């Protein structure tokens, strides 16, 4: 069956089959299937306009009428389910007559500008006119019509042209069913019916620009501006989004080498045809004028850049690394790779470090986000990865969201979660802030919002566990069969202590004991309980403890090892899971095998032809500290921007300034590149082949759709550097790197480009035992054998409020911007979020004489910055909140060096600060502005080259 076709109505997953006759042919389909879909599955296309298989049938267009023996009239095939023995005719003279009459009415109020219309050749209305054989329209334009209805062009990415609207409601239903935002409605009745974004322009409305309405529109009413500008694409290549950890599959629709639009792939395992504003529309950065495409070198960061050839740049970098290692020792250099790069690229960078640099000084940006996930889940369950696929949420009865804001950070998954919540699943939100899921998403309200004080996660998880254990709600059968009993007993004894009761901890957490008790009972008593969490869990001094606390809870309630349950970290960037899988941590080889594991090391040594170190290398913060103490002198930084994303900016930049050679490989002159001596231009996700692995462990293909603007895919640059350093690498294509990964990593054993092309995507482990991958982990047995409980003592952070710093700053992100903003700031997404704001509660604002929109100086123990204030009750008194998408904001100037005890993941979520009303930017911002302007001026004329 061609899954790219539109079958008109959604597939039914029931096992019971029904046999009927359609146009004389016997067909057998799943019970509940519509007549329209049954016909489509067997190759017969019934004309339709209001139906599409991503939406429930609506039955409004009257084009899909059929005749059914024994039934009166002409039922709509989209809303009529099949019945055993039913006899259906889809093409009769009478039906043809009715359909032609319906189309005639539609066309009589539609502009006849097909030849100049942006969707000419890609329009369902046009197709249907042809399908029903419409040859004339008897009604003229003299009467009332909508042809002069005003266009809404307010959205930067698409237009709304009501003159072309047939009021089929597909857009309205897509906004409701697919996205769950309910921003659109049909206003008025009869002839006056019109699609409305709540009587506002699209830009000013609740619309989140996910593109679901544009995707669903069968005419040119909702249309991508890029298609209006460039015309209908001529080819399509399936690839994977380069933004968040959902890993949506997209069709890159091209005209030659020009990307015209990205449309979500309905067969995408992670997104099932849905998208968000970033993946769908915010890809313009790839061809932005700020791209640097020529390699550059310089002696000092105070010198202008010199543009050089690739050979010169690579040889210069290699000479510097060699010089530094000769002078300061083998351990004086290292590398940082990025979750924005492919598996193949991150694998190659870690191989370069281990095999060529001869040390284990490799780290990745997961250090500052989900390293506690890797540690905590490995310890408890045996594998450093989430346990479920995204579809699993549709079988959850109660969903606990901890320290995550899915509607902003993981919007496509959030849409699915919201769908399940609208179906009746219960919701517990554990977050210091009122995220949209609490009470701002239509038809969704959290059953419990545990609005805790930042930094008290572990106290809350212990209090929940206390209730479950002391109320006798532990699933003892599961624990006895599946877990280490000794570890369970220690944990159960510990959480049962009075000090861990909700009552004892309520002052510390700020959450009333009764609320915690009710939430705990709800979670334990529902059949399927799932936990989704984000950086609000990991970016704490007890991040790893909290991850283990979550795993403890899931095991104690038997919520592991089947669909609808599990522990699911929502990964921030597109390839956080993958970069960790690829051995990007200094203590682990690919596949999470410790560097001291002799068997693995021997196997890699044989394959790579060199001796490898058996001791862990330096983590990013260790590298920075060592740079300042003078023992770490050079870093190769691929696709990561530590000068903006890592905590305590001044410490980071001091460390970078202390090094003798900083090599940055990136699309843009990012913040770190301003401290670099070698700049190697990077390639965007559109310009390379490889794979990304999302938060579900889903390995998805990334396919090159255009020639790299810089001339090389990123892995080729790493290979050139390695060759220049004397360690030969001779891969001819990224697929060969994946083949090597599969050969050396048991969980990737059966993964290849060919298999990915066959299956679309694969969730690891993919090996002989699981040849097509593993959607749900730990079925029957944990990866480590028996699940292990850990005692999770709550230890308050040392980052405490006092008179000087009385507020707690916590950080997060917003829908339209992504991470450090290097990509999204270079798109129209900045129209929604042009600067980072600091949210402050009205009481705290009033105390300080701060009004909405005022500038506030934010001072912490680490530094000071200035941001504009937004007064809101979303944050609780005593807590302020900001995002970190703009470098000038200096959000990380104020975050501290505090970090997770196990992994050194920074404590981004808790910084004691004071806010005061000010009239000017901070001294750091002043210095930053002049420094960055100087650095940009050092690049010279590069901006003209793209």
């Amino acid at each position, binding site marked *: 069956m061609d899954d790219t076709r539109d079958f008109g109505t959604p597939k039914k997953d029931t096992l019971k089959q029904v046999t009927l006759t359609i146009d004389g042919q016997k067909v057998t389909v799943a019970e509940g299937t519509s007549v329209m879909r049954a016909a489509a599955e067997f190759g017969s296309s019934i004309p339709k306009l209001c139906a599409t298989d991503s939406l429930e049938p609506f039955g409004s267009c009257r084009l899909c009428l059929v005749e059914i023996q024994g039934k009166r009239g002409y039922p709509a095939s989209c809303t009529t389910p099949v019945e055993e023995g039913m006899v259906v005719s889809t093409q009769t003279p009478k039906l043809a007559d009715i359909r032609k009459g319906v189309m005639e009415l539609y066309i009589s109020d539609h502009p006849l500008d097909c030849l100049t219309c942006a969707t000419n050749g890609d329009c369902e209305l046009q197709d249907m006119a042809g399908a029903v054989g419409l040859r004339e329209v008897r009604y003229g334009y003299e009467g009332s019509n909508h042809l002069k209805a005003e266009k809404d062009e307010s959205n930067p990415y698409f237009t709304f042209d009501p003159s072309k609207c047939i009021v089929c409601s597909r857009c309205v239903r897509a906004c409701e069913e697919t996205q769950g935002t309910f921003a659109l409605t049909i206003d008025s009745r009869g002839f006056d019916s019109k699609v409305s974004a709540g009587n506002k322009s699209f830009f000013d409305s609740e619309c989140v620009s996910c593109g679901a309405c544009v995707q669903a529109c069968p005419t040119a009413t909702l249309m991508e501006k890029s298609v209006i500008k460039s015309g209908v694409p001529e080819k399509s290549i399936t690839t994977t989004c380069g933004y968040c950890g959902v890993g949506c599959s997209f069709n890159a629709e091209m005209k030659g080498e020009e990307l015209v639009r990205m449309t979500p792939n309905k067969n995408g395992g992670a997104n099932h045809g849905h998208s968000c504003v970033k993946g769908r529309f915010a890809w313009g950065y790839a061809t932005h004028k700020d791209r640097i495409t020529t390699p550059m070198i310089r002696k000092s960061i105070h010198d202008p850049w010199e543009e050089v050839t690739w050979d010169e740049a690579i040889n210069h970098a290699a000479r510097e690394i060699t010089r530094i290692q000769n002078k300061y020792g083998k*351990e004086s250099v290292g590398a940082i790779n990025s979750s924005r790069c492919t598996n193949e690229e991150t694998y190659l960078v870690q191989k370069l470090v281990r095999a060529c640099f001869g040390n*284990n*000084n490799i780290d990745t940006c997961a250090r500052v986000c989900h390293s506690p996930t890797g540690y905590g889940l490995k310890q408890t369950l045996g594998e450093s990865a989430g346990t479920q696929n995204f579809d699993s949420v549709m079988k959850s009865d109660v969903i606990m969201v901890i320290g995550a804001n899915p509607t902003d950070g993981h919007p496509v998954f959030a849409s699915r979660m919201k769908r399940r919540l609208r179906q009746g699943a219960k919701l517990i939100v554990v977050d210091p802030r009122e995220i949209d899921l609490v009470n701002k998403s239509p038809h969704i309200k959290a059953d419990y919002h545990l609005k805790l004080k930042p930094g008290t996660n572990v106290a809350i998880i212990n209090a929940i566990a206390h209730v479950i254990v002391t109320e006798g709600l532990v699933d003892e059968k599961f624990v006895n069969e599946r877990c280490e009993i000794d570890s369970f007993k*220690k944990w159960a004894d*510990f959480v049962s202590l009075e000090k861990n009761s909700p009552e004892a901890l309520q002052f510390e957490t700020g959450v009333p004991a009764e609320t915690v008790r009710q939430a705990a009972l709800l979670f334990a008593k529902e059949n399927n309980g799932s936990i989704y969490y984000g950086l609000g869990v990991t970016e704490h*001094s007890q991040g*790893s*403890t909290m991850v283990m606390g979550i795993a403890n809870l899931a095991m104690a309630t038997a919520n592991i090892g089947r669909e609808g349950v599990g522990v699911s970290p929502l990964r921030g960037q597109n390839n956080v899971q993958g970069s960790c899988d690829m051995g990007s941590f*200094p*203590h682990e080889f690919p596949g999470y095998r*410790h560097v*001291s594991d002799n068997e693995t090391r021997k196997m890699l040594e044989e394959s790579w032809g060199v001796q490898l170190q058996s*001791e*862990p*290398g*330096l983590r990013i913060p*260790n590298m920075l*500290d*060592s740079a300042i*103490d003078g*023992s770490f002198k050079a870093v190769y930084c691929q696709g990561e921007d530590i000068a903006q994303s890592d905590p305590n900016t001044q410490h980071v930049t001091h460390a970078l300034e202390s090094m003798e050679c900083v090599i940055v490989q990136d699309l843009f002159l990012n913040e770190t590149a301003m401290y670099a001596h070698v700049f190697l231009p990077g390639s965007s996700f559109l310009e390379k082949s490889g794979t990304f692995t999302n938060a579900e462990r889903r390995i998805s293909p990334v396919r090159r759709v255009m020639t790299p603007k810089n001339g090389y895919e990123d892995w080729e640059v790493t290979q050139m550097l390695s060759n220049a350093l004397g360690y030969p690498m001779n891969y001819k294509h990224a697929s060969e790197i994946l083949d090597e990964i599969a050969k050396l990593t048991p969980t990737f054993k059966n993964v290849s480009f060919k298999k990915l092309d066959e299956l679309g995507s694969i969730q690891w482990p993919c090996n002989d035992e699981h040849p097509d991958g593993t959607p749900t982990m730990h079925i029957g047995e944990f990866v480590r054998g028996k699940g292990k409980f850990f*005692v*999770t*003592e709550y*230890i308050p952070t040392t980052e405490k409020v006092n008179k000087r710093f009385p507020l707690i700053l916590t950080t997060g992100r917003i829908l339209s911007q992504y991470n450090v903003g290097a990509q999204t700031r270079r798109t129209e997404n900045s129209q929604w979020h042009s600067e980072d704001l600091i949210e402050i509660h009205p009481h705290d604002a009033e105390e300080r004489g701060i009004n909405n929109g005022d500038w506030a100086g934010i001072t912490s123990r680490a530094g000071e910055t200035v941001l504009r204030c937004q007064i809101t009750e979303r944050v609780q008194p005593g807590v302020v909140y900001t995002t970190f998408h703009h470098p000038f904001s200096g959000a990380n100037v104020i975050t501290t*060096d505090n*970090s997770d*005890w*196990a*992994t*050194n993941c920074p404590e981004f979520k808790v910084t004691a600060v004071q806010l005061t009303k000010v009239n000017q930017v901070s001294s750091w911002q002043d210095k930053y502005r002049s420094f960055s302007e100087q650095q940009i001026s050092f690049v010279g004329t590069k901006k003209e080259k793209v």
Partner: protein
Amino acid sequence: MEHQQLIKMANQIAGFFEAYPDKKEAIDGVANHIQKFWAPKMRNLLKEIIKEDKIADINPLVIDASKLF
């Protein structure tokens, strides 16, 4: 690498394992963690600090564990 930073990190590790009532299990936990995740340079520096008896701020579990890594 600053001594205070190193001591702080070691004490944080000890803080986690301190919750285990069996002291040997706690000491092993600290030692294993530092052995598995710290670069030799950091481990050696910590041992040096302990050897030089600059231990006023160091959790006793760390001192006991340092004999095992």
